[in-house]
């Protein structure tokens, strides 16, 4: 690697002093003590406390809950992508003995249910502002639990049936006769904003609900005028679904005596569900209790309210019995909130030396039939320039309606899409400029001394050593041994390709989080927190933080979450926020608890609190010592439980970053790809538990690779029908098609929060799409293949080889 081929370009000095404030207050003496403490558990690969419970079938998932007298709901779903709902005849269904109710949109209106207040437009100071083309707040399409006049995607619920058994409910749902007046539909992202496309909502005749422009148009135009090279491409990062191992489920109960609703439903955060569903039902928040314990996968799909949740609560009130709903896998494929679906057109202007002068991007996000979240468009918009210093950029960000299931933030919302675009562009530009693709990247990376760095669309990167990540990944991948491996593969009839991708992503998330910590008299530390794990191991990593802070064994710390009667506040788990927000608020609450404990110890022994030493959970001074549990017990009668509660707000985002390199062997005859090497270096900020972070990285990689290689929510454009509705057609990452990963954690502590945490849940996914396609294209380069669309299935690869070969043959023939 020749790092010094050309002098580095000057990058503007850090902008933080002017524009960004990282002040989170002078740490209190206790918090300082806490952060300065010898981190005993933090940073250690403590095995997950929850695993034994989960793998021995003792998990508490939604479908595990049952209430006496419960009955079952089944949904009547639209078979059409777009239609006016006509007369609904439920008589045949109601005639079956054991069918209790068939509820329709008319019933819903009569009971005055309200639309789900998804609040899809990101609103923190750090989110880009997305508006309609006339500058107004975007029309998002009201999301009533049952649609009022029209169905707008296949699978939309048009009525629900409640019956004594699940089988009966299902059978009856097939007997509900709904008349439809079928309308023309549009499902393809590239078609929906074209003239003449059928309007999904009359309120938005062109289907474009958001059309915003950002950046420095004049400067960008000027830079493009003086560019030596311009590279332009369009990419479609297509649609996938989360395929959580636990399908969504809900058990709802209305207690007529107390007038209170109870909902058991796994989600990304019970507090949010409580807030939004109570509004749908038109009741005070405190009249709804939501319980969400173990959750079998989320990945974003469970963060927003599903119509079935308010529907079964309402149905319970109507029939006077608890009502349960458990989605089938088919329903999950059809109607779980889906991910990605972005078309992006990117243009890069380079000078003679390969430095990027400016960028233009045009991003179009397919939100589906209603807008439940603009997070993917928003998150991606802020990171179009990736890990590179691009002085000037413009972006047009559009969101469009189509007759498809709604899209939502999906693991690393928006970032894999724009990372795919910028990283593919770097490969393509290197090829067109005749430069080495690593050198081209190296030349344009944001250097550490420019941190904090403001990118051309206004995001402030907090910290990071991008070039170091890149060099370490290159080293780990045995970069120099590639040619020998390629020759060896060739001898076996395989084409070896190598992919490369850098990434930077942002982690923002709901800014508020609350922790309540109590040292119990029976010798435990209870921590109440409002995040919601779905496999991330919070019960372990959170316990590690509190155990460190209070100097107690990690086994004694118990994390309590998921019941809104106990957890009053909490932002849930999304956008890589949990460890950072929960870690910080738990640290602050621990510090407050220690301050209280110290003064109790001083009072107990009549000594000056400044002389007290605290070590390993033991307070000592002047020859006396008491451990924190004994202290809690001794002072409980006088001063109540040893307890602290703190609500913290942190708005400043963090920017995890890293590099991924992979190698893929492609069979020359069948196009079948096999990943043979996969290396990542991920800067997650401070790593609390490397075992869990590595697990997150591995899962994240599989999820990103899944989209790149197999997964696709295919839709037949003619009929509007989804055509990959089961595992027969929807390919998944599996243990046998994944390689063994080489992952290294880089810890550049973030200056934005006391623990220096960034995030570790999404970095595996973010560069995976780009690095896989990069490797495939590299493998096929000798055929003249320059790009290929995802998923890179054997058939697609074979066709790319084939058509490139045919073009070459034609060329040879015409030259002859």
């Amino acid at each position, binding site marked *: 690697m020749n790092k010094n081929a050309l002098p580095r370009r000057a990058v503007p000095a850090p902008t933080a002093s002017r524009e960004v404030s990282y002040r989170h207050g002078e740490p209190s003496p206790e918090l300082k003590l806490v952060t300065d403490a010898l981190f005993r558990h933090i940073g250690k690969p403590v095995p997950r406390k929850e695993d034994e419970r989960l793998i021995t079938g003792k998990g508490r998932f939604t479908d595990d809950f049952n209430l006496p007298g419960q009955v079952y709901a089944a949904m009547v779903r639209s078979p059409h992508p777009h239609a006016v709902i006509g007369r609904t005849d439920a008589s045949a269904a109601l005639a079956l003995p054991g069918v209790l109710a068939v509820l329709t949109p008319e019933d819903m209106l009569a009971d005055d249910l309200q639309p789900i207040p998804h609040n899809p437009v990101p609103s923190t100071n750090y989110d880009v502002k997305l508006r309609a083309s006339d500058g107004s707040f975007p029309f998002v399409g009201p999301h009533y639990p049952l649609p009022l006049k029209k169905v707008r995607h296949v699978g939309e619920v048009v009525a629900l049936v409640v019956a004594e058994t699940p089988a009966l409910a*299902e059978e009856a749902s097939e007997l509900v006769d709904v008349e439809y007046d079928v309308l023309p539909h549009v499902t393809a992202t590239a078609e929906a904003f074209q003239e003449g496309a059928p309007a999904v909502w009359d309120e938005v005749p062109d289907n474009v609900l958001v059309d915003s422009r950002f950046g420095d148009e004049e400067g960008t135009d000027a830079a493009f005028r003086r560019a030596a090279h311009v590279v332009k491409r369009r990419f479609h990062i297509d649609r996938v679904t989360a395929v959580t191992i636990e399908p969504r489920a809900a058990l709802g109960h209305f207690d007529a005596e107390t007038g209170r609703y109870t909902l058991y439903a796994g989600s990304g955060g019970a507090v949010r569900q409580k807030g939004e569903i109570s509004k749908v039902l038109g009741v005070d928040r405190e009249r709804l209790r939501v319980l969400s314990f173990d959750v079998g996968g989320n990945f974003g799909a469970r963060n927003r309210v599903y119509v079935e949740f308010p529907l079964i609560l309402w149905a319970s009130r109507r029939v006077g019995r608890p009502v349960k709903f458990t989605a089938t896998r088919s329903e999950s494929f059809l109607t779980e909130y889906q991910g990605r679906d972005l078309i992006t057109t990117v243009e890069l202007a380079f000078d003679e030396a390969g430095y990027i002068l400016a960028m233009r991007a045009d991003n179009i996000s397919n939100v589906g039939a209603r807008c439940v979240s603009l997070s993917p468009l928003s998150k991606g918009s802020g990171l179009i320039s990736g890990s590179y210093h691009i002085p000037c950029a413009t972006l047009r960000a559009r969101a469009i309606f189509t007759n498809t299931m709604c899209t939502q933030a999906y693991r690393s919302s928006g970032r894999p899409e724009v990372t795919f675009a910028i990283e593919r562009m770097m490969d393509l530009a290197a090829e067109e400029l005749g430069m080495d693709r690593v050198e081209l990247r190296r030349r344009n990376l944001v250097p550490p001394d420019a941190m904090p760095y403001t990118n051309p669309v206004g995001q402030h990167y907090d910290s990071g050593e991008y070039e170091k990540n890149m060099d370490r990944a290159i080293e780990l991948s045995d970069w120099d041994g590639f040619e020998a491996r390629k020759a060896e593969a060739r001898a076996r009839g395989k084409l070896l390709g190598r992919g490369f991708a850098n990434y930077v992503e942002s982690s923002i998330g709901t800014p508020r989080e609350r922790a309540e910590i109590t040292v119990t008299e029976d010798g435990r530390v209870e921590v109440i927190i409002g995040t919601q794990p779905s496999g991330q191991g919070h019960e372990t990593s959170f316990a590690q933080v509190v155990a460190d802070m209070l100097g107690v064994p990690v086994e004694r710390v118990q994390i309590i979450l998921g019941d809104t009667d106990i957890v009053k506040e909490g932002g849930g788990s999304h956008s890589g926020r949990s460890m950072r927000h929960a870690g910080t608020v738990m640290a602050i609450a621990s510090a407050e608890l220690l301050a209280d404990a110290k003064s109790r110890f001083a009072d107990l022994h009549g000594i000056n609190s400044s002389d007290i030493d605290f070590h390993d959970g033991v307070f000592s001074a002047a020859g006396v010592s008491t451990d924190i549990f004994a202290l809690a017990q001794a002072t409980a009668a006088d001063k109540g439980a040893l307890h602290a509660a703190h609500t913290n707000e942190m708005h400043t985002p963090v920017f995890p970053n890293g590099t991924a390199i992979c190698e893929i062997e492609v069979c020359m*005859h*069948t196009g*079948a790809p096999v990943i043979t090497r996969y290396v990542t270096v991920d800067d997650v900020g401070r790593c609390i538990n490397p075992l869990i972070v590595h697990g997150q990285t591995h899962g994240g990689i599989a999820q990103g690779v899944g989209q790149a290689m*197999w997964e696709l929510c295919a839709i037949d454009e003619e009929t509007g029908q989804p055509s990959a509705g089961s595992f027969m057609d929807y390919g998944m990452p599996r243990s046998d098609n994944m390689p063994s990963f080489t992952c290294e954690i880089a810890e550049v502590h973030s200056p934005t929060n006391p623990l220096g945490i960034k995030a570790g849940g999404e970095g595996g996914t973010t560069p995976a799409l780009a690095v896989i396609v990069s490797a495939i294209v590299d493998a096929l380069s000798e055929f003249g293949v320059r790009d290929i669309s995802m998923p890179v*299935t*054997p*058939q697609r690869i*074979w066709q790319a080889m084939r058509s490139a070969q045919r073009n070459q043959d034609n060329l040879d023939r015409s030259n002859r």
Partner: protein
Amino acid sequence: MYLYDTTYLRPGSIDEAKALYDAGESPAFLSGGHTLLPAMKGHLARHDRLIDIRRIPELQGIAEDESYLTIGAATRHCDVAAAPVVRNCIPALAGMVGTIGDVQVRHVGTIGGSLANNDPAADYPSAALALDAIFRTDQRTLTAEEYFQGLYTTALEPGELLVSVSFRKPEHAGYAKFRNPASRYALAAAFVAVHADGVRVAITGAGNDGVYRWHEAESALGHKFESESLDPLRADMENMSSDMHANAEYRAELVKFCTQKAVTNQNCITLL
């Protein structure tokens, strides 16, 4: 998701099974159920009786004679794959059966269930056709050519029970399969068997009419049994099925490649 009302019955003999079948309104034999049960759960099929024939003694067992290897229709895949007699006699057959579905499927699914269903992407039909199998039912005996009648269709009459399948022992044989990356069924697979009287090549997963013999490949290999003999050939595109995972052109290519691999790797299986 939920079956319509049905009655599960488990007879102990062929006669009892037949009687139960005759007394039903819309009965079905169950011999694994990996296709039947999902179809019933999806409400695509409705049967008042499910007659589980897997425990009937007359349908069990694996036996060898001079010319044939005979397997009882209710023998599970795991038992065929693990049987020393199968492994010694026709290693490619044992190997092939070991690639059906996954471990759970192989411990429930049976040879008879698979062959009676005749899924166009199933493995067994290609082995039966290439190994010139004889199908014994409770009523008659059929050759493989007579038995396979197209997609999900066989010569079995309603209520007719497959009792055993006898595979003609080849000099040697090989099986090569290219799996659908999503379902893991064969996107194309070839069973190539060399018998004293000639080569038989059976293709599954690819034909739009189900399993078929590739006669051009058979005669090319009859002249010289090496993969290069197939170089000038191309599988008949007219005969290829086409779906989102593989169009006809790609399938034709896979058919040829699988056949070549099956020729090269005789007495074993090749997963591509």
